[in-house]
């Protein structure tokens, strides 16, 4: 089990969790970033202070709109985070954000802007491959459009559920290419000799020390020892290229990503607080489902659940829970072919754990407690007032039986 996932080599996972986690993390991060930038200030710059190559973006109207557009982007992103109509909320949020960043770039295309562009590409990829993502509002809505037979099949063919994550596959490839560019840029502009000594890094650290008037924690040792500076310079290029190489060759990307994060941390310690967004971007490729498998599912206790395969509300809810069941700890049996112990025509739901049998509301509570993420909910459902209310709701939701 790798700590980071090479989606370029294989974009199929046994759980849909990673897509949902990345969508939420990415969305929250970008909302925070977008609402924190001083959009209103950019239009105040004198007009002649423009990057002429993109002068067509330097329009009064564009600058006037920026402070309002940030709220539109934030609103769209909130819908994106919960996964509501991802194709359009994500797609429009991403395009609008890219336009705002491009307008800002006429004043100054800083690293923050470039990192946010990368985030925007990832959001756009989520929009393009929106249907890959079942743990979302869209995913729940889609269960409504599927026939009971299809949904029942999802539940009863439980053990080999697989999920494609194309957004993360292409996202990882884009990030890898961009990092190759970081290393390539030095080869493109610099003479060959700069690869043979640490002078480049030493001078950069000294120069930024002078420019900002701040001494950095890791600056002094690297400046004083040329071999350290050389190792830092060449090591940077090596880790930046390694991500792409590992990704396309189908090797583990864990070491390359940890290497690049290490590089970012050392940049912060030697030059200043640059590129923190990229640390977030790289963390998105963590194997979240692996962590979840270890901490969030009571794997040792498997249960059997008999359910009413004609009760559509129940089946749709169970499908969502089935997506969370990464260890296949729940075996779903439809009542049409359930043994008598798992059949309860009246209550609709039966759960068997360790020989104990639960029915109806209590069965649903026991099922939720199977997932530690839902443990607080399961705990609340055991308290008398919630139980009283829940039992009545359950009874009214259950299909009427003759």
């Amino acid at each position, binding site marked *: 089990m790798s700590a980071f996932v090479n989606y370029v080599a294989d974009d199929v996972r046994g759980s849909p969790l990673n897509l949902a986690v990345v969508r939420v993390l990415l969305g929250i991060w970008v909302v925070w*970033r977008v609402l*924190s930038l001083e959009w209103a*200030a*950019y239009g105040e*710059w*004198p007009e*002649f202070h423009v990057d002429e190559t*993109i002068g*067509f973006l330097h329009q009064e109207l564009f600058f006037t709109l920026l402070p309002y557009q940030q709220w539109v982007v934030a609103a769209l992103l909130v819908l994106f985070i919960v996964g509501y109509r991802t*194709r*359009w909320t994500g*797609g429009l949020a991403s*395009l609008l954000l890219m*336009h705002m*960043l*491009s307008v800002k*770039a006429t*004043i100054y*295309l*800083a690293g*923050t*802007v*470039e990192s946010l*562009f990368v985030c925007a*590409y990832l959001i*756009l990829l989520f929009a*393009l*491959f*929106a249907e890959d993502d079942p743990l979302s509002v869209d995913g729940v809505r889609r269960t409504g459009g599927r026939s009971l037979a299809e949904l029942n099949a999802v539940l009863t063919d439980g053990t080999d559920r697989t999920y494609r994550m194309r957004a993360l596959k*292409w996202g990882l490839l*884009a990030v890898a*290419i*961009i990092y*190759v*560019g*970081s290393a*390539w*840029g*030095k080869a*493109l*502009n*610099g*003479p060959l000799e*700069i690869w043979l000594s*640490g*002078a480049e890094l*030493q*001078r950069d650290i*000294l120069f*930024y*020390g*002078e420019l*900002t*008037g*701040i001494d950095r924690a890791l600056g002094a040792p690297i*400046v004083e020892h*040329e071999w350290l500076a050389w190792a830092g310079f060449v090591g940077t290029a090596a880790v930046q290229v390694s991500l792409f190489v590992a990704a396309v060759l189908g090797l583990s990307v864990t070491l390359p990503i940890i290497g690049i994060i290490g590089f970012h941390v050392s940049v912060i310690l030697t030059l*200043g*607080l*640059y590129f923190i967004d990229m640390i977030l971007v790289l963390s998105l490729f963590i194997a979240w489902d692996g962590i979840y498998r270890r901490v969030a599912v009571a794997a040792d206790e498997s249960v059997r659940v008999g359910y009413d395969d004609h009760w559509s509300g129940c089946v749709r809810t169970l499908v969502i829970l089935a997506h969370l069941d990464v260890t296949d700890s729940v075996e779903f049996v439809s009542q049409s072919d359930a043994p008598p112990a798992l059949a309860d025509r009246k209550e609709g739901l039966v759960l068997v754990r360790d020989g104990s049998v639960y029915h109806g509301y209590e069965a649903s509570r026991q099922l939720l407690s199977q997932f530690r993420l839902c443990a607080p909910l399961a705990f609340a459902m055991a308290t008398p007032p919630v139980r009283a209310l829940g039992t009545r709701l359950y009874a009214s939701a259950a299909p009427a039986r003759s």
Partner: protein
Amino acid sequence: MVYVLFFLGTLGILAVARRQYAREVWLAGFFATLLAVTLVGMPLLPVVDMHKFAQPSEEEETYYEIRMVDAAGNELRVDDRATPPVTGTRTSTVAGQLAEGYTDDQRLEMGEFYLANAREHRQAVESGERSVTDRLQPPRYVDDEAWTAAELREYEAFEAIRIYEHTVVYSDDNTAVESNEERLRVTIDPTDGTVTEHEAGR
């Protein structure tokens, strides 16, 4: 125009995303552009590269500095927080333009822009108010030195800006800065409408 094409094309692809080859076409276009941009090192918005710290350094390097000048003639380094979104390297570029690129009219306009923003920012720092939204801000890109209220108390009203040129020379083994010489280039006083070039240095 590639820019407009990108947005229209992407919207079109989003609309027909489920059709065969639609997304493949978008991916092919996007990755071809990304590769080209990355190879050449020139962003083609909205597709960017990240060639960072890519310019090789020389034995001797120049940067420019903007300083605020108060009524008594005291000088204070500029705080980039006053004029978002720039940081040190960009301020240096602007200052370089002020030293030799811009016309006098442009110098005065930019000088006024810097002064107005500096006054506004100074007021915010001196009042010591930090709103809840300020506290929720992500860390600033490049954590350079900020003005402090205590520091600002020593100064009278800002009236002009001065541009300094710095020449940094590294020692032979690159383990230290041998010298960092500063030379006053221009004083821009939008209040009087005067621009004074200082050719001979201090």
